[in-house]
C-alpha cells in the first residue's frame, strides 16, 4: 500500500503528507516516496532479503593525488564497496583521512578521477535537482554553517533549500528541535551555542530531508557518549548510514558492519558479529587484525 495522494500527483510528497500517511495506514513513511515503493512486509521478509538493492555501490573509485588535491594526503586507489539498504557501516581507514575522503567523494564534494558510484539507486553522474543529491545527506567532521544563524534559522534555511513549504518546514523543524534537544539554544546564534549545538544542527539539517543514505564523518564528537548514541541510533530501518570514525569503539551498538580502507583500497568489509566471533574488539587494531586474518585465509581477495 502506497501513499495514494503521492502516487496520484506523481511526485515525492511533503514530509507532513508522508507522516500523515504513515499514521493513517500504518506504513513506514519512506515508502510513500515513489522511489522506494517496496512494501514493508516484503522488505523485512528474510526470503526477499537477498533482493535488497545496494544503497551505495562503488566500483573502481579513484580520487585524490596527495596534498595538492585534497589537502590531507589521502588517496583512493580503486575502492570497491557495496552497502546494502538499511546497513549501518563503520568506515575505518589507514591513513585516517581516507575514510573522510571517500565520504566527501560520495557526497559530491570531491570529484573522483575514475570509477562509478551509485547512490540510492541513482548514478552519481546524475546531477539533476531530483537526482541522488535529494536522497543523500552528508555531515562533515567540522560542520560549516554560518555562525550567526540560530539552529532554528539554519533548519529553516535547509528546509527552504530542500523546497519544503512553510507549514511543512515549521512542523518538521519543531520535531527536529525536540528530537535534537536544542532547548534554549534553538534560537540563539550557533556561535554562542558552541560546537555541540553546531553539530546537532548539522545532523538536524541532514535529517530534515529524510535521506535514504546518511554519510557521517566523525559525527557529534562534541556530545557526551550517551547523547551521541541516542542521536545516532536512527530508528528508521531503511536509512543507510555510513560513519567514518577514528574511534571505532565509540560506535559500538550503532553500527552493524565495518569496512577497513587500507592503502586506498577496501581491505575488509564484514559484519560486526564476525569481529565478535573472532574475539576481536571493535577498534582499529581489531578490525585490522580481522582484515589480516581474512588476507591469510583468502590472499587473492586482497
Amino acid at each position: 500500500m502506497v501513499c495514494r495522494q503521492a502516487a496520484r500527483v506523481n511526485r515525492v510528497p511533503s514530509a507532513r503528507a508522508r507522516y500523515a500517511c504513515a499514521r493513517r495506514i500504518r506504513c513506514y513513511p519512506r515508502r510513500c516516496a515513489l522511489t522506494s515503493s517496496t512494501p514493508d512486509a516484503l522488505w523485512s521478509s528474510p526470503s526477499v532479503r537477498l533482493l535488497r538493492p545496494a544503497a551505495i555501490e562503488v566500483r573502481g573509485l579513484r580520487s585524490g593525488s596527495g596534498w595538492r588535491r585534497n589537502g590531507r594526503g589521502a588517496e583512493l586507489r580503486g575502492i570497491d564497496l557495496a552497502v546494502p539498504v538499511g546497513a549501518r557501516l563503520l568506515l575505518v581507514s589507514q591513513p585516517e583521512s581516507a575514510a573522510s575522503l571517500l565520504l566527501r567523494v560520495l557526497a559530491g564534494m570531491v570529484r573522483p578521477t575514475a570509477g562509478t558510484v551509485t547512490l540510492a539507486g541513482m548514478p552519481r553522474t546524475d546531477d539533476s535537482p531530483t537526482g541522488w543529491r535529494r536522497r543523500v545527506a552528508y555531515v562533515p567532521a567540522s560542520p560549516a554553517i554560518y555562525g550567526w544563524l540560530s539552529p532554528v534559522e539554519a533548519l529553516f534555511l535547509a528546509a527552504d533549500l530542500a523546497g519544503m513549504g512553510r507549514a511543512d518546514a515549521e512542523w518538521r523543524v519543531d520535531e527536529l528541535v525536540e528530537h535534537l534537544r536544542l532547548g534554549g539554544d534553538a534560537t540563539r546564534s550557533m556561535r554562542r551555542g558552541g560546537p555541540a549545538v553546531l553539530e546537532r544542527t548539522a545532523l538536524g539539517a541532514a535529517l530534515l530531508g529524510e535521506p535514504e543514505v546518511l554519510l557521517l564523518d566523525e559525527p557529534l564528537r562534541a556530545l557526551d557518549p550517551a547523547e551521541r548514541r541516542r542521536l545516532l541510533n536512527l530508528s528508521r530501518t531503511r536509512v543507510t548510514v555510513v560513519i567514518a570514525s577514528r574511534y571505532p569503539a565509540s560506535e559500538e551498538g550503532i553500527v552493524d558492519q565495518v569496512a577497513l580502507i587500507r592503502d586506498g583500497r577496501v581491505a575488509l568489509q564484514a559484519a560486526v558479529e564476525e569481529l565478535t566471533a573472532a574475539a576481536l574488539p571493535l577498534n582499529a587494531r581489531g578490525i585490522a587484525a580481522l582484515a589480516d586474518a581474512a588476507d591469510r585465509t583468502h590472499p587473492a581477495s586482497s
Partner: protein
Amino acid sequence: MSRFVTLTGMAVRELWISFRLLLVAGTLLLSGLPAALLPPVLSPDLAGAPPDPVTWLAVAVAAALTLAAAVAAATLATERRRGTAGWMVARAVPRATIALSWFAAFALVVALGIVPVAVVAWLVFGPFILGEAGALAAAAVATACAGWAAIAFGLFAGAALPRWPAAVGALLAGGALLVPPAFGQAGPWWLPADGLRVLGELDTTARPVADSLRAAGVALGLAAVVLVGAVVTFERADL
C-alpha cells in the same frame, strides 16, 4: 529561482555581518570624496596640468571597484575553504546557484553604491561641468557594469585559487582592467571599462551616452563570459 533568492539574501546578510558589505559600500561612497573636496575647476585644458576632480572621481571609483573584486575573490575562496559552500551543496543546491548568488549579492552592493556617488558628483559639479544628467547616468551605469565584470573576475579567481592568491589576483586583474581607462587613456572600443573613461571625461567627451552604452554592453558581455568561466571552475572545485 526561490533558492537563488534565498541564497542571495544569505550572501548579503553574510556580507553585512562580516563587515565586508560595509567595506565595499563604504569604499564606494568614499570614492565620491574627490568630487566633494577638490575644487571643481583646475584649468584642465592646460598641457601638463594635473587631472581634474572628475578624473580623480573616476579613478577613485575604479579603485573601489577593484577592491570589491578582491573582496569577492576572497569571499568565494573562503566559502570553499571553510565548508559553507559544501554545506549548501550537501543541501542539493547546484554549485552554479551558489556562485551566481554571490555574484548577485556583490552586484547589488556595487550598483547601490554607485548611485550616491553619481548623485554627489551631480550635486558638486552640476550641469556646467558634467553636461546633461542623462550623460552622467549613462556613465554611472557603464561604470557599474565594468564593476560587475571585475567582480566576475574576482569570483573566477575565488573559485580557482586559495583566499589570498585569489584576492591578490583579482586586485591585479581588476586594477589593470579598471584603473587605466579611469585616467582617461583611450583604448580600443571593446574595452569593458571604457565607461570609467567617459565618467572621467564627461566634460570633454563628444558622445557620452553612446560611448557609455557601448561600454556597458561590452562590460556586461565580458561579465557574462567570465561568470560562466567562474561557474565552470566552481563546478570542478573540491569543497
